């Protein structure tokens, strides 16, 4: 089991049965992953996947339905484009423009 904090959120990756589980706090984000892989590789992949699912720039805080930049349960923060793990996309999207 490994616990880590990323993008201000607490995650745990743990082998449960044959597969690996990712939890954010106590919520299960993924289950049954990477069955059959060596533990170290599966753990590393699970940590990387948690970071993909919750990229820097988006933090789940909601639902704060009164916040002006909340879409559903997602609250958009100005992305920290200098963060080493910031994910770039080829094009801007209307709902999440790249410029701050």
């Amino acid at each position, binding site marked *: 089991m490994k616990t880590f904090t990323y993008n201000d959120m607490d995650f745990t990756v743990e082998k449960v049965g044959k*597969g690996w*589980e*990712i939890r954010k706090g106590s*919520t*299960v*984000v*993924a*289950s*049954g*992953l990477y*069955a059959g892989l060596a533990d170290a590789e599966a753990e590393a*992949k699970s940590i*990387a*996947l948690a970071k*993909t*699912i919750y*990229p820097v720039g*988006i933090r*789940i805080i*909601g*639902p704060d339905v009164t916040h002006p930049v909340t*879409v*559903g*349960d*997602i609250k958009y923060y100005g992305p920290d484009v200098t963060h080493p793990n910031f*994910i770039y*996309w080829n*094009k*801007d*999207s*209307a*709902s*999440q423009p790249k410029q701050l």
Partner: protein
Amino acid sequence: MEIKGKVALVTGGGNGIGEAVVKFLVNKGAKVAVVDMSQKNIDRVVADVKAMGGEAIGVLGNVTSEADTAKFIKATVEAFGQLNIVVASAGIIKDQTMLTLDKETGKVSRKMGLDKWQPVLDVNLTGTFLTIRDSSEAMVNGGWEGILVLISSINKVGQVGQMNYSSTKVADALLPKIVVGEFQMRGIKNIRCVCIAPGYTATPILAGMNQEALKAICADIHLGRLVQPEEIASGIAHCIENDAINATTLEITGGLCYKGGIAK
């Protein structure tokens, strides 16, 4: 295509038809990415899949966003190594007639605003486009066997009060023809595309409809009741498994009829 061992991504997988599809595919041995805009619903569905002993990830995302679309497809491939089945079930309704008349004067008292028009186009049409565009890209580049399943509606025939919704659903129903035509032209043979047009299905989306109108509609269904989401899911599973079903839209309505008994 056999479902067992395949990787599916279901947008709108946190509720209604999408949730039923997720669970149906998990029961058939697929690994599933549950994409939705509601974290609460994602968490519930992923917990259910875990309890079923299945493999799933939950990814919060808005299908109208290119960035989110890139993210949920990347996460799916990162989690499961490939992508084979995509069901674009995220959809919304915001019903209103184009014009509302004042009962006393007969003059127009209200018009459908862009606030009702645009979000429905954004989610049901642009969102579907982005999902299938980027999924196709992943499938073509990955060389994986795949199927894109779009969700139209029986209301593609044109439902008063759903000018926005019906416009998107007629477009969604057309897309498999265009997409498969393009695949044929480009020599892309590993991906099929189909669309399902559900009739009135017992999901929370119907809570947004005029309930009196819904009651009246039920009387016109040959089956005598609403379609169950699991019945839509089973139809989708059939389309996945039957390779000959391609470039078409399949209606699953329970036999919805016009007054007087002509099937819609």
